[in-house]
């Protein structure tokens, strides 16, 4: 019984204690939950507002990123115009008085544009605008006089500026970038820092959204028209015709029966090359060649080639590769190339002739750099030596015997 009663008493006591604690916790949790529920709309509102603000900041950052290149382009254009028509007759110290960016963007963009402008002015002394530092010009000055106490920037109060050893008659450059609809507008004005503060120069330049930035080099600034002319010149290079001078070497494969190959023949070639299209995707040449090695051989040749650019456009900075297909007619004479001689021919004195005249069809790759220097490797089939026991082949894909392997270096004039 006691055990029973104990068994009842103990759980009741425990239950009571636990129940009290539980109800305390539940009451507090409920109270906190109620408070949280009550606070939820406010928190949600704050979160939504913060999210909206963050989204707006992100949007501003993206816009500023897009505007930066356009802003650089406008500043380039401004300095280019100064180069063409300087605002001063002689080099004149100018202080960057103010640079403002479109409303809605941060000052980070202003710092970037200011640095870009400084670099441009240093690289373009012919603009006659010399950057000058003047800490007191942009500092706030407090000046007391008969008219009262005036608090202003030094630039805005030249009288006060003079008293603190200001620039004295220098000029202040004011720049403003504004986003107006689909246009980015740069306004510039130069003010003479005398008490009258006359504006001596102003310029407004606008660029539409989506206009590609010229990405001009800070040295040797050019207009869009000049840049286009230079680009066309680079594309056309020196016109469609060139005179190539080539040093070529042709090596020959040894026939199994003969044991050793003819000596390699070194050719000096020159002729005429023409680009068949404006973009030089197709070109053709015809050259005459001469080969001579004392007591070894002498030869003459005529060769013609067609070449097709591998790729869509020629590179203005890197090498281009062309697929080359050509034909050559060669005649060589000499003991070093006796295997190439025509069979059954003899000289006037009755000795066996070492002169050989034969044609070759070659296929190769040419690497050309800026239409000035080139290097070519090719494989050549000489039909007269198919199944020959005097000349072998290096490779014979699809049954075509390539008897000769050649390499050449060319210089174009």
């Amino acid at each position, binding site marked *: 019984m006691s055990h029973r009663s104990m068994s009842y008493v103990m759980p009741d006591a425990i239950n009571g204690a636990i129940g009290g604690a539980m109800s305390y916790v539940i009451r507090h949790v409920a109270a906190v939950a109620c408070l949280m529920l009550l606070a939820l709309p406010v928190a949600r509102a704050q979160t939504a507002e913060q999210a909206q603000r963050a989204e*707006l900041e992100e*949007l*501003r950052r993206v*816009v500023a990123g897009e*505007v930066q290149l356009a802003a650089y382009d406008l500043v380039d254009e401004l300095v280019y115009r100064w180069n063409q028509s300087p605002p001063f007759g002689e080099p004149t110290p100018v202080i960057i008085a103010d640079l*403002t960016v*479109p*409303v*809605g963007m941060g000052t980070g963009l202003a710092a970037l544009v200011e640095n870009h402008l400084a670099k441009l002015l240093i690289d373009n002394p012919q603009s006659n605008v010399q950057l000058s530092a003047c800490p007191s010009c942009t500092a706030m000055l407090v000046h007391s006089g008969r*008219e*009262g106490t*005036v608090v202003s920037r030094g630039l*805005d109060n030249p009288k006060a500026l003079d008293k603190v050893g200001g620039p004295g008659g220098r000029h*202040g450059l*004011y720049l*403003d970038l*504004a*986003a*107006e*609809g*689909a*246009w*980015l*507008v740069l*306004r510039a*004005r130069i*003010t003479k820092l005398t008490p*009258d*503060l*006359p*504006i001596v120069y*102003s*310029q*407004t330049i*606008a660029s*539409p*959204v*989506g206009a590609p930035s010229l990405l001009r080099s800070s040295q040797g600034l050019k207009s869009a028209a000049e840049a286009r002319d230079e680009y066309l010149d680079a594309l056309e290079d020196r016109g469609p015709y060139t005179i190539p001078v080539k040093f070529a070497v042709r090596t020959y494969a040894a026939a199994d029966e003969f044991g050793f190959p003819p000596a390699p023949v070194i050719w000096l070639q020159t002729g005429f090359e023409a680009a068949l299209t404006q973009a030089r995707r197709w070109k053709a040449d015809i050259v005459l060649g001469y080969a001579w090695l004392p007591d070894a051989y002498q030869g003459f040749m005529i060769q013609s080639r067609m070449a097709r650019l591998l790729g869509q456009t020629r590179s203005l900075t890197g090498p281009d590769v062309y697929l080359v297909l050509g034909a050559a007619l060669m005649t060589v004479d000499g003991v070093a190339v006796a295997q190439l001689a025509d069979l059954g021919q003899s000289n006037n004195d009755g000795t066996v002739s070492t002169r050989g005249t034969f044609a070759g069809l070659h296929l190769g790759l040419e690497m050309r750099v800026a239409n000035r220097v080139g290097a070519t490797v090719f494989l050549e089939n000489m039909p007269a030596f198919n199944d020959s026991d005097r000349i072998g082949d290096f490779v014979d894909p699809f049954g075509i015997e390539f008897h000769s392997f050649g390499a050449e270096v060319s210089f174009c004039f």
Partner: protein
Amino acid sequence: MEFWIYVLLFSLPSLVEYARDPVAGPLAPDLMAGAGEALRGLDCEAISHVTARERYPGRVTAPPPRGDLLDRQAVVCRARLMPPGVRRARDEAILGDLRRSSEEMAGLVAGLADPLRERTWLVEVYYPDPQVAAKVQFATKNALLEQGVRVTDRAPTLAAGDVEVLGRIDPQRAWPLACTRYVATDSLGAGDALMGVALRDRRATILNVGYCADGDWRWLR
């Protein structure tokens, strides 16, 4: 029946033209998909067919060599630099058209009779947002200079007491009073004139222009 066939045949070219109209035509998918949002973020201008051909030779077809029965125009739309919502609507309205409006305002001063026009002009802008006010002032000064008017960066000043009084009265009366005080305090000399640009009604998106010379204030717009 034949009559209606004739009507259909005659109107067919016009119907095709209308369908292909990139702005109002039913086959204008880019604009019609979310038209409201898309149009709000665009800055559009109508230009002649010939100009459009010059500017976009690959995208605008050449006019027919024997002329065209229709008066064709091209509408060039560009995305606004600042997407909607980044700036306040009123600021956007003022700044979005600042080049044209500043030229117009400067034209009012440049069009004044010679003794006034030849003066040195100071420019003062009243706008609730100082950043926008600075932009308007910059644009107006440049526009004045481009129209051959002499301009200075000098700002007219007033005593603290004047500022306090002027701040309490409405702009309609404040500008003439300020003008009188500028001259009385020699802030505006005999060879100077002040061009005032103000937003007289906070709900408006048109800036008003006036000038102060010899103590007299006149509204130009």
